[in-house]
């Protein structure tokens, strides 16, 4: 298969300030009715003297069609998931989000979160049932919250529960948490924000499997708990995970499961049997909600019965057939986000699960896993690409271009700029540190057909051929992109960086 020819839209679109024409406008807000004006006078006079805006903000002035055109052009210069085969963006589960669910999500757009409970029964029912029917069965956990508006906040939420749990038990001295280097960075960063010391375990260098002996050495009287991603971000499932949770529990700690990428294990293996006390799913990943250029997403946090009283308020409860918001929870950690979180995301995920059913969810898991085995068989034949650890992977695998880099000088940074010339999104380069050098992590979710996977592999194969025959071609990429090579030198230089147009004008004009 030969990759198709592609060229990204290139609009050479100026910054919106440069398109401004004094006096133009894109929108007219309503004015007050005559009766209001007569009684109240002009709005400006209602502001205390010293707080009136003296000079208008320097926002751009454009007519409506010109604003629309500008942002349509910017959208065209964005390779969204729906435009291409997005399986190179691993750990992100770039699956299809059914379009009908957008329409359904729109049904709550004019709902205010502080409305009386009796006027929120529809959305509360959806959130309650999604937690208590779907996530309960999928995870084995007992109680749920959707207040954390992203996966990392779900992880942070669990660190706060851990903090409060130990404080309540008179053990605030437990100030260490344990994670693994191939757990997502949030498993280290969010407990650290909550004040924990972070102990990071490294895998067995031969197998890549998390090292149980290292865990045994790390636990002690200061252990508050663990934050573990499984399968890890390199795709390996920790086979001893139940032994791990046992070791943590024996030391008096709690176990938080990072199930951000649970796509290949839905209906296959669960947090409950693995011994976890709490978990979070990234609903926008496994349960299909569009990623929105990076949010709004949602966590789905589940906890065991013993930790239910710590959940953030309000908790959605069901009483006599009605759904209610329970704020009266003295042991609650309080709030991690205003209101109830991103319920439009929860709603999409409910609809997705309703369209799948038990067999459909299991089928999605199996196919995503089989897709990855199929992709791996093809990728491992591509020159210059190696797999660091031999173990079979579940949903994704972390590959290395170290060999290619040694042979040709072409590394992941270059390959990432070349694949887009064939209409494929840059690969997710993997979080740091790069324990596996020159990494990439494709994740072929159930959305992708065999033909899609074949195409994606053909692009990687083609770029590998180019790297070995004409490395300059790859290094000088992209050739068919919206813009040319960016000068990266200024991004760490206070005299040159510009995080706004006004800063740019001050420094560079």
């Amino acid at each position: 298969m030969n990759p198709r020819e592609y060229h990204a839209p290139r609009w050479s679109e100026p910054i919106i300030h440069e398109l401004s024409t004094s006096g133009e406008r894109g929108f007219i807000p309503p004015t007050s009715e005559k009766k209001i004006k007569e009684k109240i006078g002009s709005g400006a006079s209602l502001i205390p003297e010293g707080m009136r805006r003296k000079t208008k903000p320097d926002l751009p002035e454009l007519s409506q069609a010109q604003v629309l055109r500008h942002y349509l052009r910017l959208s065209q210069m964005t390779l969204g998931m729906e435009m291409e085969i997005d399986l190179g963006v691993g750990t992100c589960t770039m699956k299809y989000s059914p379009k009908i669910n957008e329409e359904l999500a729109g049904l709550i757009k004019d709902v205010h979160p502080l409305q009386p409970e009796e006027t929120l029964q529809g959305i509360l029912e959806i959130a309650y049932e999604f937690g208590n029917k779907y996530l309960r069965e999928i995870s084995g956990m007992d109680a749920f919250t959707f207040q954390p508006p992203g996966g990392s906040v779900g992880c942070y939420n669990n660190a706060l529960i851990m903090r409060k749990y130990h404080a309540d038990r008179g053990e605030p001295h437990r100030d260490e948490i344990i994670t693994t280097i191939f757990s997502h960075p949030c498993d280290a960063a969010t407990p650290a924000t909550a004040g924990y010391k972070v102990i990071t375990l490294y895998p067995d260098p031969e197998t890549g499997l998390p090292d149980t002996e290292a865990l045994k050495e790390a636990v002690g009287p200061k252990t508050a708990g663990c934050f573990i991603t499984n399968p890890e971000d390199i795709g390996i499932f920790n086979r001893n995970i139940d032994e791990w949770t046992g070791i943590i529990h024996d030391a008096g700690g709690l176990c938080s499961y990072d199930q951000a990428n649970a796509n290949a294990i839905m209906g296959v293996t669960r947090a409950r049997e693995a011994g976890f006390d709490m978990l979070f799913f990234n609903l926008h990943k496994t349960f299909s909600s569009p990623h929105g250029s990076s949010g709004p997403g949602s966590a789905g946090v589940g906890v065991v019965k013993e930790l239910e009283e710590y959940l953030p308020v309000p908790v959605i409860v069901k009483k006599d057939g009605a759904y209610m918001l329970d704020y009266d929870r003295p042991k609650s950690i309080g709030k991690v986000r205003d209101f109830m979180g991103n319920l439009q995301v929860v709603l999409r995920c409910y609809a997705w699960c309703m369209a799948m059913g038990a067999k459909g969810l299991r089928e999605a898991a199996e196919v995503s896993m089989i897709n990855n085995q199929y992709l791996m068989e093809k990728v491992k034949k591509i020159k210059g690409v190696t797999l660091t650890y031999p173990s079979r992977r579940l949903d994704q695998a972390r590959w290395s271009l170290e060999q290619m880099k040694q042979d040709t000088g072409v590394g992941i940074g270059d390959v990432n700029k070349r694949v887009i010339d064939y209409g494929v999104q840059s690969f997710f380069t993997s979080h740091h540190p790069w324990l596996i050098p020159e990494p990439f992590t494709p994740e072929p979710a159930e959305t992708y057909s065999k033909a899609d996977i074949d195409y994606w592999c053909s692009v990687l194969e083609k770029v590998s051929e180019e790297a070995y025959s004409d490395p300059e071609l790859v290094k000088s990429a992209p050739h068919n992109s919206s813009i040319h090579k960016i000068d990266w030198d200024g991004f760490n230089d206070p005299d040159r960086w510009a995080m706004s147009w006004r800063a740019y004008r001050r420094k560079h004009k």
Partner: protein
Amino acid sequence: MGKDFVHPYIPNSVPKIKQEMLDFIGAKDADELYTEMIPERLLLKREMQLPEPLLSEQELKRHVAGILSKNKTTEEYISFLGGGCWQHYVPKVCEVIQSRSEFLTAYAGGAYSDHGRFQANFEFQSLICELLGMEVSGLPTYDWGAAAGNSVRMASRITGRNEILVPRNASLARLSILKNFCGSVDPKGEIKITLVDYEPETGRVDLNDLESKLCENIAGVYFENPNYLGVIESEGAKISELAHSVGAESIVGVDPISLGVLASPAEYGADIACGEAQPLGVSMYAGGGSCGFIASRDEERYVAEYPLRLLSLAPTNVEGEFGFGQALYSRTSYMAREKAKDWVGTTTVLWGITATVYMSLLGPQGMKELGETVLEKSHYTAAALNELSGVEVPYSGFFKEFPVRFTRPVKEVNEKLLGHKIFGGNDLSKDFPELGKSALYCVTEMHSLDMIEKLETALREVVA
């Protein structure tokens, strides 16, 4: 679903294709592969017990829409609810852009392949900076509460101090979020929050109490403008000056839709500004429209402490062309894990794009006119309610929200208003008992004179 069932979301559920792939892999079936990776004892050996699926789109739509029809919306009822999520008009162009497949479904693509997204995000930073009078902002965060939490932690790191002052007229929900951000397992890492009184007669920060609590340990003074009770902090410059007098940071949380008419935080001395972008063209979504932001001056000591992704403009090798990339990326948790500045994750970037379109559509004139209309309508409503017996509006000098005090319990008033298809203001009696039986009313450009008069008529009946 039988063995041969093909699901429309799963192309490789076609049995023949799946078999070809298994043959290629050299495996019998999925179970064989799973057993190789996951120990037998951890495998779920039964089918999950879940509701029967609705496989056709039309049945699914009917089912979900049927449940959601149990909601009432602010389209059917006249709503005076605010308190952190506000009803403003959403221009159609905002909806068109946020629905574009490219923006809706992009995620972690690169600076070339997602050039348009990077530019839209840079423009978000640029336009929010114009409203705030700042020079640095980043990609949006989750909500105002998270923005305040990060801002306070930034101030603590910048000053090397571990105490902040927060007035009691800030949102209690945000205060709860803030408390979580300030707490720590490590006693040395904890940021102490000291509350400052507000003047019961004006609703504004009590400057005497603020001054008495300021000392060399204070990392920052965080206040909101307009504050949670809707009142404009007319002494913003004085508050900043007091903060600066002990070397503390002035941190201001704002509702940016007020900034066409209200002074920017920079004008009254803010070092760090944060707030909530939902009013800028994002629908309420039962609270799912939240979109926090942080901004500051362009100084390295501030920039180095941001947890957020910060997009910088940069030249390309073609004269006059721009590209974008991450400034000081090594700060972020994606690079530094537990050594990072707090953490960064999937936040609310789509809403940031929507807000950018909104600010571009309204421009300086639209923001000014909108602010004036909001002021006029809210003040008209307050004046009208104040004339009713059994109803009192204690504060003047507000923007779009104001407490309304009743002689009857708010719960009872709101229940009766519901019968008139009106959502009364949010009940403050529990969180702000010193205000008596009060509710926080929000009036915006969405409220026609007719709607305001309906409230007047209903309240006259309800409180009689």
